[in-house]
């Protein structure tokens, strides 16, 4: 590894950043997306007294004596089959769509969700490298800026499809995401008033020293959680898709890989939202015992931190999935009512109260 040390710092930075991007996207996000879909299907099946996917069995399974059939019953191979199917299916472009936007929309839906992951510190250090792709000082502002771009993919898909179902889905998504963006943005302000820094690594360091922010700011957490559901179009706020009302919502006209991209976008957004919540409210990669709350000095500790982070994130993903099979969809006006008349004032009040408390504490 000498040649790496001989390179100048800019080159080193570039190489390691590329490496981290590739590893995070292809070895972490994509498999998590694929298997989150499996978990979704399994959890929904169990909640509805079914067994869920348990059929897909590639040729090599019959050479594995006991493990093979067990894995098949778990449905482990279904995501692979799903992916293959998305690639092989006919990519149908209806005649009535606006072609350019129709092709652009799926990409625009996926990219912001992935970009949002860039600032998430998913571990402390591994060797000399910080386990965050971009350690920005404006971390959270960057996230909100990028995440709000996600709505363009959906709106564009709704517009480009030139069909009333998609159009309604697009309109709903724009209204919904814009309103919840505000509540979400305001809900985290008290956090940064406490931490005194926008850098997400600092937020984690702050929580390592004291209690997790979910205990200090429970109201902020609730608002953030609900807004995250709305932002990622998950039930009970999946109005842009609303299968029962709008066929498929904004992606009604899409098929094969383009449809799969919307799916990947949705699940990546879920990952990003869960990761964000872990960082902001659940202490990121730290655990308050066994010395796990300090940046790692050894490789083992580094991997342990990544493991802690991923575990916390997966738990929150399961919450996302579970809620989908628990609650019915909100009506459109109820959704807007909840956003504008409940959460925005609540978030504002939370800011004021936090400010007053901080002022009182510091005044003495």
């Amino acid at each position, binding site marked *: 590894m000498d040649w790496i040390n001989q390179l100048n710092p800019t080159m080193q930075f570039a190489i390691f950043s590329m490496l981290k991007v590739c590893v995070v996207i292809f070895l972490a996000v994509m498999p998590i997306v694929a298997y989150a879909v499996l978990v979704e299907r399994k959890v929904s099946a*169990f909640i*509805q*007294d*079914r*067994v869920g996917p*348990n059929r897909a069995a590639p040729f090599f399974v019959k050479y594995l004596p006991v493990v093979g059939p067990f894995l098949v019953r778990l449905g482990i191979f279904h995501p692979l089959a799903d992916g293959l199917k998305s690639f092989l299916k006919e990519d149908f472009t209806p005649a009535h769509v606006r072609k350019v936007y129709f092709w652009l929309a799926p990409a625009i839906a996926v990219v912001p969700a992935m970009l949002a992951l860039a600032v998430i510190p998913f571990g402390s250090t591994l060797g000399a490298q910080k386990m965050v792709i971009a350690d920005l000082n404006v971390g959270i502002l960057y996230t909100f800026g990028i995440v709000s771009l996600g709505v363009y993919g959906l709106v564009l898909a709704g517009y480009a499809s030139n069909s009333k179902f998609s159009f309604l889905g697009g309109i709903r998504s724009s209204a919904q995401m814009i309103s919840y963006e505000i509540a979400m943005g305001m809900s985290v302000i008290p956090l940064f008033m406490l931490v005194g820094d926008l850098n997400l690594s600092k937020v984690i360091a702050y929580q390592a020293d004291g209690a997790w922010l979910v205990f200090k700011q429970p109201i902020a957490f609730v608002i953030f959680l609900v807004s995250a559901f709305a932002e990622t179009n998950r039930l009970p706020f999946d109005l842009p898709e609303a299968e029962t009302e709008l066929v498929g919502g904004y992606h009604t006209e899409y098929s094969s890989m383009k449809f799969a991209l919307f799916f990947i976008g949705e699940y990546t957004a879920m990952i990003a939202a869960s990761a964000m919540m872990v960082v902001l409210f659940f202490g990121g990669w730290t655990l308050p015992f066994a010395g796990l709350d300090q940046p790692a000095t050894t490789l083992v500790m580094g991997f342990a931190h990544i493991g802690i982070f991923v575990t916390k994130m997966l738990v929150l993903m399961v919450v996302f999935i*579970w809620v989908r*099979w*628990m*609650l019915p969809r909100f009506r459109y006006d109820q959704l807007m009512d909840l956003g504008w008349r409940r959460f925005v004032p609540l978030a504002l009040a939370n800011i004021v109260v936090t400010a007053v408390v901080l002022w009182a504490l510091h005044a003495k």
Partner: protein
Amino acid sequence: MIVKRANLSFWERLYLPALLSGLQVTWRHFSRTFFAGKKVTMEYPEQKWVVPEGYRGAPYLVRDQSGDTKCVSCQLCEFVCPPKAIKIIPPGSSGKPAERANAEKMPAEFEINMLRCIFCGFCQEVCPEEAIFLQRDYSLTGLSRGEMIYDKEKLLALGGTHAGVQKWKHKLDEAKEQETFPVKG
């Protein structure tokens, strides 16, 4: 009927009770299926639903107690069948005689197109001979349309036997009794 909208208390309006009971219900179902394995579905091709006696599945022809074809080719079922799934070729004047004593004829060919049949049971209801019954098969498969047209042999083989009221046997017995004198009661 006008359903009165109940005024929700503050606690209820927080959505929290609904959330909690939702969690309770889903957890109950999840644990029941996941830990206790009490699923309500069946894994179809391997496990098959055993339908109860009297289920109205596919119509098959039956034989009588002595193994003879019961159908007398009256073509009532062909006439009544709503989707025209039945096709009967009568024996004609030079065809094979009926297997049963006392019956006049039996069909030369009897086909049911299972792709058309809607399992309505009209054929069973209309049949004067108790010769056709809707039986317990509900999932018929085939690799071609031709395969799904069941002919007489197949229908008889699948149908099994069904003695029924044995009207012709009684008629025959009665007729025999009349041969002797004096005629009994």
